[in-house]
């Protein structure tokens, strides 16, 4: 069972205190979007084997959504960061690159 540190309150929360929210950094497609773009927004997920950026809510805590960079193979948590970010911060990226030197994220 995972432990993730909530970046808003600093609590090392266990998985039962959290609610999962799926892939992070999805770009919302509104009424102007094409069928293809909207379908992709709703359904296309990277389902990464490796470094995944994902959403969690500290549901049994401060109630804030945050994002985590987690390795779906090793379960390593490279870091957590605020939900308002457009991507993982430098610290998180650097931690990922210790294990995956060629890793980069695309939004």
């Amino acid at each position: 069972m995972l432990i993730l540190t909530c970046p808003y309150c600093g609590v090392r929360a266990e998985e039962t205190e959290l609610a999962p929210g799926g892939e992070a950094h999805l770009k919302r497609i509104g009424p102007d979007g094409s069928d293809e773009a909207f379908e992709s927004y709703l359904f296309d997920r990277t389902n990464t084997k490796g470094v995944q950026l994902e959403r969690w809510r500290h549901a049994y805590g401060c109630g804030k959504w945050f994002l985590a960079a987690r390795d779906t193979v090793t379960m390593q948590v490279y870091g957590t960061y605020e939900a308002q970010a457009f991507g993982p911060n430098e610290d998180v990226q650097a931690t990922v690159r210790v294990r995956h030197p060629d890793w980069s994220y695309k939004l």
Partner: protein
Amino acid sequence: MAETLATIRRAAPCAMISIRADLGRAGDALAEATGLAMPEQVRIVTDGSRALGWMSPDELLLIGPLDARNEMRDACDQALAGEHGLVLDVSDMRVMFAIEGPRADDVIRKLCPVDLDAMPQDGMRRTRAAQVGVAIWREGDGGGRGWRLICFRSVADYVETILRNAAIPGAHLAPR
């Protein structure tokens, strides 16, 4: 028959005011209005009759005597005048339990996935007790360490049941 690990009782109703605001901007005004220092992250500040708990980066819970509920609410509202904020009297929404006695820690350790040793003396932790959300902090004596626990009113009977089950005589956590 051994004693229960801790006494479990419902604390007398008190005033609870929920405050949402940008605490960086409004913190000083709120501290002045409540007469309490701003609590640090996941801490609770108390002066014996009132307490101010950190609930989230933009949320505080002010606790005080029941008859001061309107005064407390209005003071916070005034402190946030001109700010984007939300002040609500939520005194009826929650029930507070006092868990007191030398083995009160054991009761909490059975219900909450929280490392109590790592929690500061003035810590306030929102977490889970068995299957419901709660907040806990240390308060009271009862011959040892004591705890306060708040939960939503609808689950108060459930919470009382699990607290009493966790406190049954002889079920201490010390190695045997």
